[in-house]
């Protein structure tokens, strides 16, 4: 069964860096939106090559938020 994984790293100041894997296309952004939608202060979104592959089975993406 496919697995979706999000790794959240909360730094010493409470900023969050999120990295996803196992999502199809833009669904990784939607998953992060669901998870961190209330969090404000997104300062960086970096998509990977996998994100742009239409038939990609997996994508990974990092997103960084500042509280």
């Amino acid at each position, binding site marked *: *069964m*496919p*697995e*979706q*994984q*999000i*790794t*959240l*790293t*909360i*730094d*010493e*100041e*409470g900023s*969050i860096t999120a990295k996803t894997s*196992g999502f199809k296309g833009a669904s990784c952004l939607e998953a992060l939106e*669901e*998870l*961190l939608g*209330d*969090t404000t202060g997104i300062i960086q979104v970096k998509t990977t090559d996998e994100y742009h592959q239409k038939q990609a089975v997996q994508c990974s993406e990092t997103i960084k938020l500042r*509280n």
Partner: protein
Amino acid sequence: MSAVIKTTTPFTIKEVLFSALARLGAEPVLVTAENINTFRQQSNVAIDDIITNRRDYNGLQLFCFNGDVWQLQHDQDEYATRIVSATQKKYQSVSRFLSELNVAYQGCYLIHLENIAELERQRIEQERIDRVEATRQQAIAKAKAQGYSVKEKHIQGKIQLVLTRSV
């Protein structure tokens, strides 16, 4: 005729004054509703005054707050002066005493500022800890609500949450 006068640093902070008096061995005592009756004397004593162990004709010399600064109340002629203490004996003139108190007050004021800075540093640090913890708890709660299992690690002062779910 000319004159030069020098005043002390205005004694504005009660805690600093109290510390400075203690440093000089003036054995300060804060007058409260509970102990005021032990200070009945010729000069008026009120709650919140700071009594010293310096006695003169009017009784124990004390500091009272006039709304701006703490002022020493004492007999102008410094008549019948002595120190009321088990350990201190030598009475110094008011001017000498205030001069030494001035130096002690300035030293205690610096410590007071350091204490304030330390308290502020602790407050900011606690805010940071609370912020991180709130972020962690919120992330875990939302992840679990969305069907993720959560594994937590602590790496170099950072919290890593690995959220996994099967689809």
